[in-house]
């Protein structure tokens, strides 16, 4: 019971094993949801990352693995997991291409003609965020939630317990710093 809630508490207490267990549980659920959502929606369904995070949260709560009051902590963590799901998927796709076993729609984009560019953009953004995490961790967290989690300004403000105005200011600055890194 309350497995994720307990892991979140252990994580707050600094237990590194809890981080790994929490990541594995959330990764598995978000990955499964992404696969099932897109299977239902067909080949051209756009992945709505924020919807997946909401759905994962509700499933964990209804399964008794997470308390509703841990919503904020879960959302803060879930954008990091969503980023990993996406980046790993892109890397798998690129590896398949290089190995000559590329299945054209294993991971596609809305505009297939730009698929390779989009994959490159996602990986470069991931690497730029790694640099931003070292320079300004909060800006990186806001950018991760916005870009990979697809969270609204309001959701980010609630998750980080800051004002929407601060979120807008952080996001503007984060975009400029990321642009400097991506040049």
């Amino acid at each position: 019971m309350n497995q994720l809630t307990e892991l979140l508490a252990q994580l707050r207490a600094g237990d590194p094993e809890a981080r790994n267990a929490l990541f594995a549980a959330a990764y598995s659920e978000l990955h499964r949801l992404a696969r099932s959502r897109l299977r239902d929606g067909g080949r051209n369904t756009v992945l709505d990352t924020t919807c997946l995070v909401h759905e994962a949260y509700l499933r964990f709560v209804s399964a008794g693995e997470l308390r509703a009051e841990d919503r904020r902590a879960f959302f803060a963590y879930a954008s990091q997991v969503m980023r990993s799901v996406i980046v790993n998927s892109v890397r798998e796709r690129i590896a398949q291409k290089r190995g000559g076993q590329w299945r054209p729609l294993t991971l596609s984009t809305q505009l297939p003609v730009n698929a390779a560019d989009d994959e490159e953009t996602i990986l470069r953004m991931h690497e730029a965020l790694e640099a931003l995490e070292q320079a300004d961790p909060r800006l990186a967290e806001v950018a991760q939630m916005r870009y990979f989690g697809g969270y609204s300004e309001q959701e980010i403000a609630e998750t980080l317990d800051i004002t929407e105005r601060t979120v807008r200011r952080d996001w503007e600055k984060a975009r400029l710093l990321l642009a400097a890194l991506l040049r």
Partner: protein
Amino acid sequence: MRPSIPQLALMSRLLDEALPLDEADRRAWLERRSPEYPDLAQHLREALLPQESQAAYSKSPLTLPGLAFAPEFG
């Protein structure tokens, strides 16, 4: 040139000073402060006055490309 981590942290602090300014004040701020930070001067100019730059700062990343996973994904 891509900024280093310390340069990025410095640029973050400098943007705190300059972003609240209007265009004319940003230009004056750049004239005054850029010489102190020659390695960042171009980045700061492109960030603060994107309309005067050929770089794509105004088109900096906003959203994840429209991802879709096919049934084989997994």
